[in-house]
């Protein structure tokens, strides 16, 4: 038996798993409806796929949410996991699930997939016959992913960097890499049976003044780590920056470089798609305004040429959205995509060149790290600040880079820390900003820049 298979047996021998039948699951994946695979939908549906966010504790409520989404003409269903499961605390999740089922009140902020188990969950997924995207934020997602695929969930979001740096303060980064390596392998193996399982990275990160070069470098590195293990369908992603032009430039550069680096490791047979997140930063409290913002995000996603869009709701600033608000966004987004026509072809050569140079400089620095494997190189690069994510709460993050918005609201790097962008690029970035201001005004500008959509 392979080492991986032994590890799988241990993982799936967990007391909260009710007899994982490897053969049956393999058989299920092999014969599963192609409609369940987002990779198949990307290939066959000639449109931007629309995916909302959402998850409820009980089967009944989750089923109702999905029904609502399907009626609103959704393309991809989300399944958001509760935070106990994310922390592998299945005991608490179990207790809270029972309480949620017995009373009418939700005691979990998502769907406790492991506790529901794959036999139950698969019923729901095959019933709706739509591709499902697993949204979690779990550093050790091994059991979760096994259960997800066994349930018919064939898109797995996250990654060792993107699910850690924005979501955690203390979880050890090296462990995250190893746990995700397992995930990639499992996805890769199942991909041989039917259409490929899709992996998706979480590009929004902290959604707060993250410069495009950092986002893209991280997307590419998570993609490479995944492709190394044999994944054949991968989605890179990013969220609205606040500048339409910067979004379009980012879209062009990330598409080009993803292809480039995939080819470099001889993975030209891998399909790479682009996912765009509607504005992920601070939302306006006025719900009508929130809808304007959401609509504008959809327009920009079209200009970026995204293959999938992940939506927000009018209730973002206040709390967990109702299923009505969520479904409304889906219907509106579909309508907007349908009426938005005659997209112009936009190329900003100078911005694309600068961004490409920046990303390549970071990638090269990572590759040049003396460690033996890619994940160790990436680990070291994060630790030494070659990769630096603004506003990450994680202790390992370097926190030396400072970014600000220029007059057109493009995010610009005004202090590079250890991020190895060239002098030419750095001068270009700074030249766009007014740096004659004193520190207090710059700090005020940053505060203002965080709240630009409010």
């Amino acid at each position, binding site marked *: 038996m392979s080492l991986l298979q032994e590890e799988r047996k241990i993982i799936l021998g967990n007391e909260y798993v009710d007899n994982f039948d490897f053969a049956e699951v393999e058989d299920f994946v092999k014969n599963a409806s192609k409609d369940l695979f987002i990779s198949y939908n990307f290939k066959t549906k000639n449109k931007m796929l629309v995916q909302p966010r959402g998850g409820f504790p009980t089967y009944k409520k989750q089923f109702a949410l999905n029904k609502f989404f399907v009626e609103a003409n959704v393309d991809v269903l989300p399944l958001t996991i509760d935070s106990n499961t994310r922390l592998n605390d299945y005991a608490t999740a179990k207790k809270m699930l029972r309480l949620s089922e017995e009373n009418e009140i939700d005691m979990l902020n998502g769907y406790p997939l492991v506790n529901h188990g794959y036999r139950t969950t698969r019923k729901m997924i095959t019933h709706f016959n739509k591709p499902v995207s697993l949204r979690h934020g779990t550093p050790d997602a091994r059991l979760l992913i096994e259960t997800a695929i066994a349930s018919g969930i064939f898109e797995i979001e996250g990654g060792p960097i993107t699910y850690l740096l924005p979501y955690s*303060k*203390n979880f050890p980064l090296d462990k995250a890499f190893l746990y995700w390596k397992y995930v990639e392998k499992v996805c890769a193996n199942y991909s041989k049976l039917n259409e490929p399982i899709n992996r998706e990275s979480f590009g929004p990160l*902290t959604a*707060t003044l993250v410069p495009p070069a950092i986002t893209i470098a991280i997307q590419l590195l998570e993609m490479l780590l995944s492709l190394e293990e044999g994944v054949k369908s991968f989605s890179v992603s990013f969220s609205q920056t606040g500048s339409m032009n910067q979004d379009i430039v980012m879209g062009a550069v990330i598409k080009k470089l993803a292809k480039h680096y995939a080819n470099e490791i001889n993975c030209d047979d891998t399909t790479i798609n682009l996912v765009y997140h509607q504005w992920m930063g601070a939302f306006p409290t006025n719900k009508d305004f929130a809808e304007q913002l959401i609509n504008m995000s959809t327009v920009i996603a079209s200009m970026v040429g995204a293959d999938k869009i992940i939506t927000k709701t009018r209730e973002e600033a*206040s709390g*967990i959205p109702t299923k009505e608000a969520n479904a409304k966004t889906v219907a509106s987004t579909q309508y907007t995509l349908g009426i938005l026509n005659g997209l112009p072809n936009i190329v900003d050569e100078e911005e694309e060149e600068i961004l490409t140079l920046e990303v390549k400089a970071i990638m090269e620095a990572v590759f040049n790290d003396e460690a033996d494997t890619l994940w160790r190189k990436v680990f070291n690069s994060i630790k030494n600040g070659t990769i630096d994510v603004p506003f990450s*709460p994680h202790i390992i993050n370097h926190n030396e880079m400072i970014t600000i918005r220029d007059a057109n609201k493009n995010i610009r790097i005004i202090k590079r820390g250890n991020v190895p962008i060239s002098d030419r690029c750095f001068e270009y970035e700074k030249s766009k900003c007014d740096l004659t201001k004193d520190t207090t005004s710059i700090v005020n500008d940053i*505060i203002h820049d965080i709240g630009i959509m409010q």
Partner: protein
Amino acid sequence: MKVVTGVVGNDIHVVANRLIELSLHARGFEVFNLGVNTYLEEFFDAVVETDADILLISSLNGEAEGWSREIKILKSKYKNLDNLVMVIGGNLVVGTASPETIVPKYKNYGFDLVFHQVDLNTGLDTLEEFLKERNK
């Protein structure tokens, strides 16, 4: 004056926390920022260690209420915290609720100043006035 600040519980929303540190500095406070994901004991330990005058807690993801219930019991285990000014702000409930119901509740938990969905600068202005009144 010394302030201990941070985000309570498993909450990792760090943006407001960074801004709070900047603003407190700019207003002349000596700031000890424990960052996100900080538990109550850590807050009180830091207050004792630094001999802080003010404890300013943030909460964004809705967790605050769960933790606040334990404040009185916990605080009573420490000595000399009677003069500590306790402030909390951010998004203090899961979902929505009005300040009329939230503020008295949190005052009862032991906070002197409570800012639910109040802008940072408005909140800090109020804090400074409160301190002035108090030291008259």
